[in-house]
């Protein structure tokens, strides 16, 4: 068994209302120190986690959405978002915040971390993983 595994964090829940999204992100941040191959998937209500302009002042809960923009610094730069989940909720890529990373293999060019994939492609991505953590 190789020392590096492919980890996929599957985010299925809305960012607020339950703690799953926040505690998922905490695992991602800690896990980044283990130098594994990491990707995140957003589907079902999980796509709301990446929407821009989140304002939680009315509910007294910390807005953790800016943390997603820091993931590039942790070498976490594959954020797969399921197209059908967006469409079913009346969302498009334009509703998501811009999340960039610097590609060290391409002279540190800034590239988008969010990749919109179809439901069928998401199934293929899941099939390729060694470890799937579902939140």
């Amino acid at each position, binding site marked *: *068994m190789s*020392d590096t*595994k492919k*980890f996929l964090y599957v985010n299925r829940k809305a960012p607020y209302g339950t*703690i*799953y999204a926040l*505690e998922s992100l*905490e*695992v991602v941040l*800690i*896990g980044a*120190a*283990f130098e*594994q191959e990491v990707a995140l998937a957003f589907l079902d209500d999980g796509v709301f986690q990446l929407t821009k302009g989140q304002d939680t002042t009315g509910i007294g809960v910390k807005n953790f959405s800016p943390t997603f923009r820091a993931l590039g610094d942790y070498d976490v730069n594959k954020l797969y978002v399921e197209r059908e989940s967006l469409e079913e909720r009346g969302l498009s890529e334009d509703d998501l915040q811009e999340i960039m990373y610097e590609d060290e293999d391409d002279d540190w060019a800034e590239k988008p971390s969010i990749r919109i994939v179809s439901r069928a492609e998401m199934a293929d991505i899941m099939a390729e993983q060694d*470890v*799937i*953590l*579902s*939140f």
Partner: protein
Amino acid sequence: MKIGVVISEGPYTHQAADTGYHFVKAALAKGHEVPRVFFYHDGVNVATRLSVPPQDERNIQKNWTELAKEHGIDMVVCIAAAQRRGLLDENEAERQGKDANNIAEGFRISGLGQLIEMAIQTDRLVMFGD
């Protein structure tokens, strides 16, 4: 096969801690190894020794404590999730200036790194949640 297990829902409200328990028992009976069980989200509440379910109901914490003792399973409770929910061992209670602790025998509080390490070192990771 080495199997790592995650329990991510609270006891009694959800089936996850029971199903996980039955799964681990069955896996061990088949000759598999379960070196560690990691408790996350409300799953950390399994580890309180202060729960007192009615006598004609199963005691989820005791089930886990006995199973872990019998098979040498390392039961780890996530510290960040535990602190939010009021699960403390003796050291943490003292460090946080709290007047009590409530961790049951067989459980230990540690970091999320233990979850990642378990996923790396086992052949399969199985999550029990919602």
